[in-house]
């Protein structure tokens, strides 16, 4: 069986983390790092209490507050009662179970998938889980990282292991050079538009190819982040010099002699040349243009200069019904051009695009300019650390001079769990990851795009092509 000789990177990491498996049962799979936040953990801690169990490996557990937290007046008690209770529950649970917590006000606080890499918690070759589907973000470092439900959070807290069935593997290779104005967000939106929101289900994806290699770590994180939006278990990118450079001197990175030893191991983390994937897809980077979504799932995206499909293009009855429902919700029409569409809000934030490089990209477009009168623009840094860097670089002033609202760190308007909601019927260009009905607030109309596109639209007050400006 030739397949077992040569392994993909995913298989290498999988094999080195299986504690035990038996015929007909899922594998007992070891988790190197467990990230926790306030929304998906309360019931898990309750479960531990009921079983009279401690957290098995507190040194492999980190908690932060991100989904529910306000992004203004973070030093004051949370006004919204349920949010406050949830955040308090996390504080109490971490205190009781001796789990490290980076709460509101802590310099390490932020969106869970921003702080993991920022602090060097995320390291190549690891297995990482969190009760949040965008855990796939950490795959950018060559990790097997995926989202889990609350019951599984309880499993990991209790045993540092999780039961898992081995997924199939998919290689998505992007070759060539990216065109001007095209960034990593456009790459992943393009991929999902080709594969569909369910096309990756059952697979763990590896992103490869020269276009991927040309990306910075933060750009790679954007791609891995949205792996879940095509239904994939997770997505990873093999580590390289870019990765190792990023890792150096991070808080939790190995130091001194351990660094050298770790580096030696990390350099082995790549798929064997002759390894076979269950599915392969090759994309020409030159085919990718700035993207925008028009519908209500991340797969409903087109190039910025494109038009919404026509009903006549659908041959499948249920696909057509879904399309009509989606377009109707969005208040758009079949065959419509996206360019020129009026918008009301722009949200720059979320675990997909709220890192320092994203903020720098936005600043480079809006510097010296003002937002259009008809839009409200929110810029929400991914972590207290990113906020600090942005201020040191003077980006905050560029944003406020442009009339943008620069806020504190949190998940914010990505999912509108806190006050940062998009009102019903309003159009929002968002650098986040989901455009589902009501995602950003009941009736909100989300259009996903890159930070470059979002910045350009904020100035123009409508959908524009970034390439007309740069």
């Amino acid at each position, binding site marked *: 069986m030739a397949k077992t000789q040569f392994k993909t990177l995913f298989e290498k990491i999988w094999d080195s983390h299986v504690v035990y498996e038996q015929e007909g049962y899922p594998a007992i799979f070891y988790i190197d790092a467990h990230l926790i936040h306030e929304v998906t953990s309360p*019931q898990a801690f309750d479960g531990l209490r009921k079983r009279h169990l401690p957290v098995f490996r507190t040194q492999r557990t980190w908690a932060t507050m991100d989904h529910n937290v306000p992004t203004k007046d973070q030093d004051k008690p949370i006004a919204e009662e349920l949010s406050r209770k949830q955040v308090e529950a996390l504080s109490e649970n971490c205190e009781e179970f001796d789990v490290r917590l980076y709460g509101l006000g802590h310099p390490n606080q932020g969106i869970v998938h921003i702080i993991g890499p920022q602090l060097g918690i995320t390291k190549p070759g690891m297995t990482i889980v969190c009760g949040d589907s965008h855990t796939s973000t950490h795959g950018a470092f060559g990790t097997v990282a995926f989202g889990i439900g609350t019951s599984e959070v309880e499993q990991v807290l209790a045993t540092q292991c999780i039961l898992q069935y081995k997924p199939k593997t998919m290689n998505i290779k992007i070759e060539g050079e990216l065109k001007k104005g095209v960034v990593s967000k456009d790459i992943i939106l393009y991929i999902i538009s080709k594969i569909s929101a369910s096309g990756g289900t059952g697979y763990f994806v590896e992103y490869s190819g020269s276009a991927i290699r040309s990306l910075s770590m933060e750009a790679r994180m954007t791609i891995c982040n949205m792996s879940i939006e095509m239904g994939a278990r997770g997505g990873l990118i093999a580590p390289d010099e870019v990765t190792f450079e990023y890792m150096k001197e991070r808080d939790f990175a190995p130091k001194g002699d351990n660094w050298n030893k770790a580096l030696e191991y990390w350099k082995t983390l790549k798929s064997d040349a002759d390894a076979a994937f269950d599915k392969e897809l090759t994309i020409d980077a030159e085919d990718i243009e700035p993207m925008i979504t028009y519908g209500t799932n991340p797969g409903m995206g087109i190039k910025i200069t494109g038009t919404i499909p026509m009903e006549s293009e659908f041959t499948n009855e*249920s696909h057509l019904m879904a399309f009509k429902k989606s377009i109707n919700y969005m208040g758009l029409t079949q065959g419509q051009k996206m360019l020129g569409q009026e918008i009301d809000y722009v949200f720059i934030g979320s675990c997909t695009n709220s890192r320092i490089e994203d903020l720098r990209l936005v600043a480079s477009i809006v510097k010296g300019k003002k937002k259009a009168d008809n839009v409200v623009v929110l810029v929400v840094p991914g972590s207290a650390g990113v906020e600090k860097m942005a201020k040191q670089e003077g980006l905050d002033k560029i944003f406020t001079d442009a009339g943008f609202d620069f806020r504190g760190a949190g998940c914010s308007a990505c999912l509108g769990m806190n006050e940062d909601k998009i009102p019903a019927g309003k159009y929002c260009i968002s650098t986040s990851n989901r455009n589902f009905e009501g995602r950003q607030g009941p009736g909100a109309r989300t259009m996903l795009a890159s930070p470059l596109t979002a910045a350009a639209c904020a100035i123009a007050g409508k959908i524009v092509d970034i390439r007309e400006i740069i």
Partner: protein
Amino acid sequence: MIDETKKISIIKSNAVPLPLENIDTDQIIPARFLKSISSEGYGKDLFRDWRYDKEGNPKKDFVLNDSTYSGQILVVGNNFGSGSSREHAAWALQGYGFKAVVSSFFADIFKSNCLNNFLLPIQVSPSFLNKLFDLIEKDPKLEIIVNLPNQTISVGGDSLIEKIEINPYKKLCLLNGYDDISYILSMQDKIEEFERQREDDFSITY
């Protein structure tokens, strides 16, 4: 821990049809309802924004508000449960009273969440699903039989019948009310042995 009350064996019930594709977990339970610290009480907010208007009045055209249809089985279109990993989606469906969901395709994390909560996700072929929707439309009181031990789903005395795929481990758990943690804890010594072998693994120590 064994939960006797949640065991699943044979479900005989009529069904609620919701023939929409790509229903994501934000529709099943919107984010603003994830704020409870308990795993109970989500049933009332199931499909909240499809079920109720802005003023909180039931929307007449949504199936859960149509008394013609009822039952412990929900039948939905392809790719059910995509998006967020929120287990609250499974809790909401179960809290509402469903014991099983039938679709031609389930998103991964959602499927796991169902199985971990004794809510049976039944994946059938697209043609079975279409026939089922037709039959339910013709007879809203149609009785569907889900037989977990035999792994079948059938209607009309087997006039329409299909095999249910389910992995042996989860089938065992569902039939007996077992949970995953008990299984893993029974392997505690293997976990500690695994950790001992990696003590020198500098790349993952802290």
